């Protein structure tokens, strides 16, 4: 297990500045993520135009949209907001409570709305 009493990476601390070499390194990473985000967005738009809703392929495309969105979100949070470079304890304090609430909200929202849809269809005049 990762030890939390070690200051693993304090390069973003207030009293720390980055050297030119570190800058080059970080900029390389930024360019990589930029290309990735642009390519994913282009794929999403291409698929959205080509595959129509209601076709047999649509459910696959829909889920691939959700997966691609989560990949984009991961890279924005981990690299652009450099949460990936923060300490493990901070990462969990940010991500876990949020993920728990949203997992619950999604579950309850989908269950209840499907039920309502069912009832309305059944008792439609």
């Amino acid at each position, binding site marked *: 297990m990762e030890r939390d009493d070690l200051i693993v990476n304090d390069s973003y601390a207030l009293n720390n500045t980055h050297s030119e070499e570190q800058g080059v390194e970080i900029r390389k990473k930024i360019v990589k993520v930029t290309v990735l985000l642009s390519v994913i967005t282009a794929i999403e738009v291409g698929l959205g135009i080509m595959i129509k809703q209601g076709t047999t392929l649509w459910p696959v495309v829909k889920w691939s949209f959700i997966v691609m969105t989560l990949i984009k*979100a991961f890279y924005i949070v981990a690299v652009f907001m450099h949460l990936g470079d*923060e300490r493990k304890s901070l990462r969990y304090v940010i991500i876990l409570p949020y993920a728990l609430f949203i997992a619950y909200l999604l579950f309850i929202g989908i269950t209840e709305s499907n039920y309502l849809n069912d009832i309305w269809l059944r008792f439609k005049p």
Partner: protein
Amino acid sequence: MASEATQAVDSSTLWGGGRSPFSVSYGKMMMWFFLVSDALTFSGLLVAYGYARHAYTGDWPIGEQVFYSLPFLSGKYPLIYVALMTFILIISSVTMVLAVEAGHRKDDRGVIKWLGWTIVGGFFFLGSQAWEWSHFIHGTAGYILTPDNAKYYLTEEIPQGMVAADVADFGLIANKGAEDETRITGQRAVEIYNTKTIHVQGANMTINEYGPPQYGNFFFFITGFHGFHVFSGVVINIIIFMQVLKGVYRRRGHYEMVEKTGLYWHFVDLVWVFVFTFFYLI
């Protein structure tokens, strides 16, 4: 990277005060906590949208059939404009992270250059959104309802100051999207049009031509709330930009303010990534 990289810290010092156990400053941690709460708000809105859509038993509008216009062009370009907006916001997020990176090297000129471009990107996005709202509100040819509650979509838009009979090729589409979809043209179409009880064009808070009223309401609320975040982000960026110009952070010895506004700006981009998927694509 850091000189103290492998140094173990006694946990009584770590959690007993004197030093941030998360190794971040108070301001940055509070910015993260604020972003978590804001993320919960936006997630609530998107889940509410999904709830309304799932529960609705009719046809919910499809993004690519509502948003297909480009400024100055008349053809159909589904999703291209929204994709452009997404791209503008991603690029402004990149320039922001470059400004933060320059700040860590105490490179004034770099911060000024990249923060400047970020502000420009923010204005571009806001302008795009204004155009899209205007287009959504004014709408296309729209549909009419007749006294027997039948719905007919217009094939041609009726220009201001003209009546249906003046429009060349004026036509109506009955039972649009169904098996027995029929097209009515000529004198008959004009007669039906003149019996209309209402002509719905574009969108407002109570009715819209695209689908159920909730669709318009969610569009206005979600993209509006996001647009408001972009607007406040641009304002904060401008304030920080002026501080950098005045050399406040050079004297302070660190550019953490740029980093904190950067966190907010990336968050705005992050929200748009989700709005783009769940409102426009799916």
